[in-house]
């Protein structure tokens, strides 16, 4: 408040003292109205753009509707769901997704935490180091996917070129059954290790110093300090980061699309990518909707888990 002092103090004070009891009641009423007016536009948008489409997908998942064939949709009830849950194709994609999610998240957690630990032990240049390490995370998956595709290219990719100058053989990174999924995991790890690092670093710098001082007075070993002080204090925050990454990795689509398009064969087809193929290449909209609804259920369970740990973290 930068207005001249006497004016602001005198006049509103008189207004408030003139009618003391009335503002209380009307304020509460208008508060409720205000809350509604401020929240409902956002909620309405979410209802229109998220809930309504999902309900539509839920309806379609019980029908044999096809977006290209058109015509009326016939109710087939749970046929789509049983078809998906018993399909060997889907089981294979689920396994691929599991390997991808567990592999990528485990790798980036280990690496990210290690980098954060190493950075937290430095006294100088921590800001510069952190900033540099964070660059991959901010890039678009399109840029990351395209660029790694170039680097992993079997003919003129720089990775094979370096392997060659080391006297090692050439690897067909993206076009061999075994290495394609590995490449996908490596690229995802490259992009998202900084994410884990950032959050682990936040946890590590938050560990109170006096705990270490107390431990060193007791002549506790480095490993003992790490195990009994650092890890228990950082773990809750790290778990949040891991869950977050797991959800993101589960719904990942763009990197697969750009890097391998699910190939070679179907070796890098994750569930997300398979849904896309069923919906946009097979045009079985009903089946794809059922598939999507099942994926949404998994995401909801994971989100619930994530929020539970988050609340626990906030309560402590």
């Amino acid at each position: 408040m930068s207005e001249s002092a006497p004016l602001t103090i005198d006049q509103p004070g008189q207004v408030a003292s003139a009618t003391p009891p009335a503002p209380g009641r009307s304020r509460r009423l208008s508060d409720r109205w205000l809350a509604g007016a401020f929240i409902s536009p956002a909620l309405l948008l979410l209802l229109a753009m998220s809930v309504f489409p999902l309900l539509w997908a839920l309806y379609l998942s019980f029908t044999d509707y096809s977006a290209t064939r058109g015509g009326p949709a016939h109710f087939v009830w749970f046929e789509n769901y049983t078809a998906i849950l018993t399909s060997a194709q889907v089981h294979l994609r689920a396994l691929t997704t599991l390997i991808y999610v567990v592999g990528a998240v485990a790798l980036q957690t280990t690496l990210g935490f290690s980098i954060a630990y190493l950075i937290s032990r430095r006294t100088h240049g921590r800001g510069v180091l952190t900033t540099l390490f964070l660059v991959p995370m901010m890039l678009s998956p399109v840029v990351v996917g395209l660029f790694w595709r170039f680097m992993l290219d079997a003919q003129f990719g720089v990775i094979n070129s370096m392997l060659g100058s080391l006297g090692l053989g050439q690897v067909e990174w993206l076009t061999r059954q075994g290495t394609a999924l590995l490449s996908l995991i490596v690229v995802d790890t490259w992009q998202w290790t900084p994410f884990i690092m950032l959050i682990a670093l936040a946890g590590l710098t938050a560990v109170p110093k006096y705990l270490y001082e107390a431990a060193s007075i007791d002549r506790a070993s480095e490993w003992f300090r790490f195990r009994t002080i650092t890890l228990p204090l950082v773990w809750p925050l790290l778990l949040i980061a891991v869950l977050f990454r797991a959800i993101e990795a589960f719904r990942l689509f763009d990197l697969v699309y750009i890097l391998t398009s699910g190939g070679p064969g179907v070796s890098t087809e994750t569930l997300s990518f398979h849904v896309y193929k069923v919906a946009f290449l097979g045009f079985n909209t009903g089946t794809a909707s059922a598939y999507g609804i099942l994926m949404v259920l998994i995401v909801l369970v994971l989100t619930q888990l994530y929020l539970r740990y988050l609340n626990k973290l906030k309560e402590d």
Partner: protein
Amino acid sequence: MAVSVDEAVSAGPGRDHTPSRRRRGGRGRSVLEVALLTVLAVVMLFPVLWMIETSIKENRDVYAIPAKFFDFKVTLDHFKDVFAGSGGGRSALSVSFLNSVVVAGVSTALATVLGVPAAWAYSRFSVKAKKDQLFFILSTRFMPPVVVVIPIFLMYRQLGLIDNKLGLILIYTAFNVPFTIWMMKGFVDEVPAEYEDAAMLDGYTRLQAFWKFTLPLLLPGIAATAVFALIFSWNEFVFAIFLTSSDSVRTAPPAIAGLIGGTTIDWGLVAAASVVFALPVLVFAYLVRKHLVAGVTLGAVRR
């Protein structure tokens, strides 16, 4: 508790002065750690450097076997190709960059206008089933885009929003509103409600108190939140590729991805386009580095 990069800089561990320094091999270990960090930093940054290098290499050097690391000819032709079309005038890529600016900018503005008041209301008032509402809001943000895009596609087909910037703006707004609400709720929580109470004792209404006293204090938070929303929309790919097709509507991510469609791929052009595309993101990310932890966890982690 410290969470930002800046704080990480200033808050030294102070552990180097503890007896651990005196232990045998303490210095050797420290050297080892620095070496390890350097190697990791080089590995993490190499792809970025390689991308920049490729974008300024002459085509002959781009495809050289073995790869040329230092002795290549520098050219800015690829960057010229990004902006200028082959027959003069603007290239399709530069049009897509403009589309990206429009779509990301408008959707961010809309998400801010819708999200900030909602965040304030969630922070200040006792709303029915507040936790459930907030959970619902966050879970819409976690929906797999490939799944959401199926019914959205059908819906847009009915409404004539396929291959339309408005369609993209709407879906990006819907994806940024949950983020804005979660992120801003944290910022609003930090502003004491007593400011508004005091203003209301002075005779202002609740709305005036919000507008005149709380909102100005929230501006830095709003700016940071908007920058993150801008980055999310700018980088988004899945909706863009399924909901748009023509050059005049397409945003940059699908346009850049479209460069590798043909039989021969001009990797120099891909690299230059990627550099141009990524540069603003890196600048913006640097501006909001203090809020990175909150930003990348959708406003959930903040202490």
